[in-house]
């Protein structure tokens, strides 16, 4: 397809400019607050700036760094489990036709659509009994509800573009099943797997209500902290935490925006972020 620049009409440019400003706008006061010292009504811009909020955020006494670590660990754990369990499932759904596939697809899809609160309220009792409520492990497990289906969906998209004949070829050339996976399958699915994992990480990274309910306030992740500072009116610290909190997503988007085409399943689960 040749690149053609037909140009846009003035009206289109105007609407586009308005739209993009609207999409960027809410992030601006957050960034400004994070570096403000005082910013009282009715000043349009802060009257003085300081890095107070940032030094608080990075100080060893604040709970921000532990929360950051906690959030990352939980997201990492949920992603790893999702990869280990989700890749074979994605392969089955992407490559093979079998009876009841449609039902399974809906079963995988449903947890991505049904809001977390509807599920987590019921789970709470069991997690309490198992001693998982209030623990990071419990939070990680409950994060699997959105992350695992997301991984399965992404991987089934990856596998539907994958030709398993290459594995058979490797096996006939003397590779063991493990070797065939390592040398043939893995290189083929790796780009999709990487991108899918990063987005899965982000899905866990953004969970709020699941963490709040199962963590019971004892597992403090970044979003919980953010919520608390926001409702307590500490706008400067809220701003700084927000900036840290959105960083992985923005970085990921820089690398992986072109994979969000809606054709490989990456996009469908984005609303859970």
């Amino acid at each position, binding site marked *: 397809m040749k*690149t*053609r*620049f037909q140009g*846009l009409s003035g009206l289109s440019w105007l*609407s586009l400019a308005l*739209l*993009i400003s*609207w*999409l960027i706008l*809410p*992030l601006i*006061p*957050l960034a400004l607050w994070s570096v403000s010292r005082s910013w009282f*009504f*009715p000043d*349009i811009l802060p009257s003085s700036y300081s890095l107070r909020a940032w030094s608080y955020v990075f100080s060893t006494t604040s709970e921000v760094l532990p929360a950051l670590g906690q959030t990352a660990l939980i997201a990492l754990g949920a992603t790893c489990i999702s990869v280990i*369990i989700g890749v074979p*499932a994605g392969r*089955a*759904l992407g490559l093979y036709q079998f009876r009841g596939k*449609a039902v*399974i697809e809906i079963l995988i*899809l*449903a947890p991505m*659509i*049904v*809001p*977390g*609160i*509807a*599920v*987590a*309220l*019921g*789970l*709470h*009792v069991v997690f309490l009994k198992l001693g998982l409520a209030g623990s990071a492990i419990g939070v990680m*497990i*409950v994060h*699997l*509800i959105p992350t695992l289906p997301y991984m*399965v969906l992404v991987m089934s998209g990856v596998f539907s573009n994958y030709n398993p004949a290459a594995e058979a070829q490797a096996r006939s050339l003397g590779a063991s099943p493990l070797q065939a996976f390592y040398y043939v399958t893995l290189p083929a699915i790796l780009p999709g797997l990487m991108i899918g994992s990063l987005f899965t990480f*982000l899905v866990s990274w*953004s969970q*709020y*209500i699941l963490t709040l309910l199962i963590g019971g306030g004892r597992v403090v992740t970044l979003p919980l902290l*953010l*919520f608390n500072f*926001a409702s307590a009116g500490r*706008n400067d610290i809220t701003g700084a935490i*927000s900036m840290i*909190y959105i960083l992985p*997503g923005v970085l990921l*988007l820089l690398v992986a925006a072109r994979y*969000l*085409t*809606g054709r490989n399943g990456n*996009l469908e689960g984005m*609303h859970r*972020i």
Partner: protein
Amino acid sequence: MLSPALLIVCGLFIGGLALGFVGSLGYMPLIGQETFNLDAYRQILLSERFLLSFLLTFHIAFTSTVIASLLALGAALILRQSFLGRSVINFLFQINLTVPHLVGAVGILYLFSQSGVFARLAYEFSLISKPSEFPAMIFDPLAIGIIMQYVWKEIPFIGLILLANMQTIGRDYEAVAQSLGASRWQSFRHVLLPLLMPGLLTSGMIVFAFTFGAYEIPALLGQNYPAALPVLAYQAFTDVDLNARPEALAMAMIIALLSAVMIYGYARFTRRYIRK
């Protein structure tokens, strides 16, 4: 290959729903309740608090889904054209896709609260003389702030799905329509729109289900009474009075039921779309 995944999905997801359902029927061995009844449903359905909350939540979900869908459609129509700087614009269009809802909610709070950026601008232009004169858009009965947050967040989501659909559809159908005498508007109305409908409906359903059940946004931007349904459910669930739990679970079931309807619609439309 599927069984571990199915086990976890069934265990956590179906299990959670089933336990919630049982609990909503009043079965709570923890406090010695071992009978089933519909008291919780009866109670919430008769309470004004719940009904107002349900209506508010429906209003939030419906309004934000419709507005986001329309704006996303417009955005996709512009963005599918080729123009200079398109890749930059495309990136900016996607940027809040990976920004968590909560951050967007805080951003909206700082923009639209009565001491927010827009209130300050209004003061600057002498439209208001003190913060309280700025129209309430946060903690307000119409949930304007919440809706703005969802619209902000969901435009790129729906927009990208529509763009992907448009790419699959191509421009040939519209070319045929024009060649057959359709004006630009007619070829949009009678050709592109019907072809996009499945994508529009399915993404709308995902967004509706999400906005109906999200907790943190209305918890941060919403008023206390009536509160959005997930907020009300959470409050009831964490109530010191354990007797409120069945009601919380009943509300969770109502949220789940509504999303089940959305999933049904989603499955139907994707199926139809694939068959073509």
